[in-house]
């Protein structure tokens, strides 16, 4: 039960993956997230499954809870390891001004850029991953958010109106660029950011 103090506190997975995660999340936040990952992993499997995330009360009552959980398990995978966990959460890191100034244009875009935040939101709508939000998909998300409180007709008119307003090339669906354009005035950085206190 007893170990000498200071015996290698930083877990191995953090030591190995900093190059993959370092630009996305600071070291201190990484440690916090790792402890959180371990806390969510009740039976110490080393990975998270859907059920582990569903047990979070505040997430289970969120109308979009299931969609959010889906975003952690892309392509039908069943196990979420720690780098994957961080990759999704890294999108919500607040955007610092210095990032844009010093960025080398040849490097891939950081995970928490405005575009990537928008992509995350887009994926919550676009279930079949075809790059477009159809009227049907819009209806589905609306239904999730309102439950049984609103009638089908009302929901359909809302969906129709929204698709019409955003759709520019008239194909009856909202592509990612149209989505981004309709939100260009919105302060995405502030709405889709979670600041981890040190």
């Amino acid at each position, binding site marked *: *039960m*007893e*170990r*000498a*103090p*200071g*015996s290698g*506190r930083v877990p191995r997975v953090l030591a190995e993956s900093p190059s993959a995660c370092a630009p996305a999340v600071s070291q*201190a936040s990484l*440690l*916090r997230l790792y402890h*959180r990952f371990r806390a*969510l992993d009740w039976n110490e499997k080393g990975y998270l499954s859907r059920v582990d*995330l*569903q*047990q*979070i*009360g*505040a*997430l*289970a*009552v*969120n*109308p*979009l*809870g299931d969609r*959010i959980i889906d975003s952690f398990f892309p392509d039908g995978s069943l196990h979420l390891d720690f780098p994957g966990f961080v990759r*999704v*959460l890294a999108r*919500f890191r607040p955007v610092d001004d210095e990032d844009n100034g010093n960025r080398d244009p040849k490097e891939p875009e950081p995970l928490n850029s405005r575009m990537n935040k928008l992509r*995350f*939101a887009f994926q*919550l*709508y676009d279930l079949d991953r075809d790059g477009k939000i159809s009227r049907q998909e819009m209806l589905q998300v*609306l239904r999730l*958010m*309102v*439950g*049984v*409180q*609103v009638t089908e*007709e*009302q929901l359909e*008119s*809302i969906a129709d109106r*929204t698709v019409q307003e*955003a759709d520019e090339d008239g194909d009856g669906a*909202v592509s990612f660029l149209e989505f981004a354009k*309709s*939100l260009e*005035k*919105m302060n*995405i950085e502030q*709405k*889709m950011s*979670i*600041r*981890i*206190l*040190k």
Partner: protein
Amino acid sequence: MDGAELAGKIVYTWLTLVLGFILLPSAFGVSLGISELYMKILVKTLEWATLRIEKGVSKESVLKNSASVGIIQRDESPMEKGLSGLRGRDFELSDVFYFSKKGLEAIVEDEVTQRFSSEELVSWNLLTRTNVNFQYISPKLTMVWVLGVIVRYCVLLPLRVTLAFIGISFLVIGTTLVGQLPESSLKNRLSELVHLTCCRICVRALSGTIHYHNKQYRPQKGGICVANHTSPIDVLILTTDGCYAMVGQVHGGLMGIIQRAMVKACPHVWFERSEMKDRHLVTERLREHIADKKKLPILIFPEGTCINNTSVMMFKKGSFEIGGTIYPVAIKYNPQFGDAFWNSSKYNMVSYLLRVMTSWAIVCDVWYMPPMTREEGEDAVQFANRVKSAIAIQGGLTELPWDGGLKRAKVKDTYKEEQQKNYSKMLVGNGSLNSELD
């Protein structure tokens, strides 16, 4: 021959010491001040250790934030403000941002999951199990730590195990003997004496230091005592200062033997597993019990499960439907000396007891509070919440509306419907679609 004689002599002196210094004073409720001395030395050592650690890490940045502060910056504005977009109240593509941000925040940190792991300490108390962020500092500190390990495992642990053994055997034998007597006030007094003595011995077995506040509000006969739940030790702590009738399920094994013995001496309320499901039956039996003013107050933990002593979760309304006077009690442990929280999904009873017996001590405060009764026009749920707030305020704990059973079961859909209702009201209630309804 010599070896056996020597061993015999050691055991003999050991037992005499234990008897003289611990058992007899417990029987008479007298304290010899040994625990106080031990605590003073312990506090001085921990203070010294804290200073050393602080000197050592002043250069690096350390994640020493206590968990109750919260690790993310939260924007607690209501749904309407969070959803305000470019156009006002109608639906927009960006509404989904609000929910996804809230969802991700819940994944990073939620109020409930953190309540089921032990509280993080602000400064280390020389136990490896609480060592979350503390690095190697100096050889002196390590030496003190090694000394601590030796003291805890080789001196304290055998002593405590002996005491626990003696305490439990005395309880079983004592209550069985008292149970043979006919019903009389003598029997009640003897049973009280036996219970109190054994509880005191068991508390000493844990090196417990308990401060009772407001003893004038101690629960009276015919009432119901309600407290927040952190571990099975809560029962021990409360019964050291008064006798209660316990409520619970009949267990097998050692617990079952103790339960059967105890019920011979004074009327506790034990239910079979099948009876527990029938809420009506349970309420009836408890009502019968408190109607008899000569019976001891019932002890109930309405949370239904062990929480880590930083917060109070939803009180189940069942105990508050019985009627009668409720005597709330707040119990707050000091985590610096030992963690009393029983994480039942991580440790079983035996490893939990071992952990407790190899900590420094169990230090806690117990506050008795003025009795409360249900007011006119208040239903059981509101009454339960009122009592819960009172206990949370007194004990300095946060109050949470969640059900402690969440760690085992899925959350009810009614909570999700609340959020959906709020959002729909925004969309349809005030928006331009109103005209289409008529």
